């Protein structure tokens, strides 16, 4: 009996090792790791775009979707081959530090301010800074993600543009949930409250309740995306050729058209603006 157990253990060990060895072998065909953001992935863009890219080039893109800061950090560590985020200042720093090759603009989407249809703070229009001033003045309820995401960073910049220092003097109705876009919208829907959100999440959000878009179209609400190939000088294993193919394709006619073609409920989400 006991020799039988020893044999069983040996077999189990070999089986496990074989399974572990098999997997890396499969990974040798054309794959790419892309670090991007949760809001981009959740908008559904990648589900639409990447199959087209694969058709065109045969390359499988594996998207690791995390917060903007973490995505750039992933690139710095060399754990991704290409980085695709929406924080121009941070991206330019990334390239300046030598972690990325050229930064190329790809597309923009925009943020919108949603709120209760009754609009107690009278924010409706296309001036986001004015809207924020009115919200602060009327102590209307406002839900902020407060999670250091790209959306949160954009929101804070706009409060600054409105002349309000959130860190020092929060308006009475300002609520910080430390949560993702979906839960923040849920909260806004039930309170009700104003919420600063990206259009993509809003378009696929099902639990709107009384909320509607109140402020849109302000240039300051535009959210610019950029793509960068991770610098092989820092991380020699980076699949530079494949990563460059992605950067080239997404800024090419074919890629830009694919981006424009992505719609939710008939509404276009992302607006291609590559410099080609």
């Amino acid at each position, binding site marked *: *009996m*006991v020799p039988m*157990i020893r044999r069983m*253990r040996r077999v*189990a*060990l070999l089986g*496990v090792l074989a*399974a*572990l060895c098999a*997997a*890396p072998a499969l*990974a040798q065909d054309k794959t790419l*790791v892309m670090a991007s953001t*949760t809001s981009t*992935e*959740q908008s559904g863009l*990648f*589900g639409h775009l990447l199959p087209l890219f694969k058709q065109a080039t045969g390359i499988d893109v*594996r*998207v*690791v*979707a*995390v917060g903007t800061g973490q995505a750039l950090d992933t690139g*710095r*560590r*060399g*754990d991704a081959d290409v980085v695709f985020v929406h924080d121009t200042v941070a991206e330019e720093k990334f390239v300046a530090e030598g972690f990325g090759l050229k930064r190329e603009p790809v597309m923009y989407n925009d943020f919108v301010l949603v709120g209760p249809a009754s609009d107690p703070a009278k924010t409706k229009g296309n001036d986001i800074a004015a809207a924020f001033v009115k919200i602060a003045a009327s102590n209307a309820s406002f839900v902020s993600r407060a999670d250091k995401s790209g959306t949160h960073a954009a929101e804070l910049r706009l409060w600054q543009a409105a002349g309000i220092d959130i860190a020092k003097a929060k308006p009475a109705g300002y609520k910080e949930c430390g*949560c*993702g*876009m*979906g*839960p923040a*919208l*849920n909260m806004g829907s039930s309170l009700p409250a104003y919420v600063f959100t990206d259009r993509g*999440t809003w378009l696929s*959000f*099902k*639990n709107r309740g009384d909320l509607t878009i109140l402020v849109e179209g302000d240039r300051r609400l535009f959210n610019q995306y950029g793509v960068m190939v991770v610098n092989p000088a820092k*991380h020699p*294993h980076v699949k530079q050729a494949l990563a460059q193919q992605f950067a080239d394709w997404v800024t090419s006619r074919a890629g830009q058209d694919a981006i424009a073609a992505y719609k939710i409920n008939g509404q276009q989400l992302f607006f291609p603006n590559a410099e080609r």
Partner: protein
Amino acid sequence: MNSIADSLALAWQLITTADAALWRIVGLSLRVSATACAIGALAGLCLGAWLAVARFRGHRAAVWAVNSLLALPSVVVGLVVYLLLSRSGPLGSWGILFTPNAMVIAQSILVVPLIAALSRRLVLDGLRDGGDQLRSLGASPLQSALLMLVHERFGVLTVGLTAFGRAVSEVGAVMIVGGNIDGFTRVMTTAIALETSKGDLPLALALGVVLLGVVGLINGVIMAMQSRTSLEREVYV
């Protein structure tokens, strides 16, 4: 409440429509956790048996360390493994970050203390009854310990199921080292976390129900196998 009823209905719908994406995710969850438990069992049972009988300076410290690691948060394991496997880390050349293999490694590390601590207890309790007899028959301390594990194999099975439960239900480690890549490293728990952060709570809950259902099915099969091969045992247990 409404959303729970909705979720149960949605869960049923997911199961009956045999959604291919869902079953791929379920399959990956089971494969990763089962492999991790197999590796963890190999290491953990040997470690537990050895800790039960070994006598050396620092032995008590080793037992204390294993017992304390029972409370290791999964996200901490994930972070440590991430730092090890990152290209900027010592094992970066393996290139397995953001793949299922990294997830297996992280979950194995997670379950080894659990299996070691519980199997050590099984061995000690067994040796209290039969340690003398096995020594009399000529068994070395380690042989006695391993024989106790064979003797208490149903107890060992429970330990294995406990470890599997810990592995399949954790989200912190696999999220960090796997990256929750759609179609590649997305497992049940990371999918649930994703749907939750998207605000789609009924779907998240439904996925949770599916996960529990699958694990319940596995346990049911194991119980049925057990009672078929040990009819007499039921009388004594």
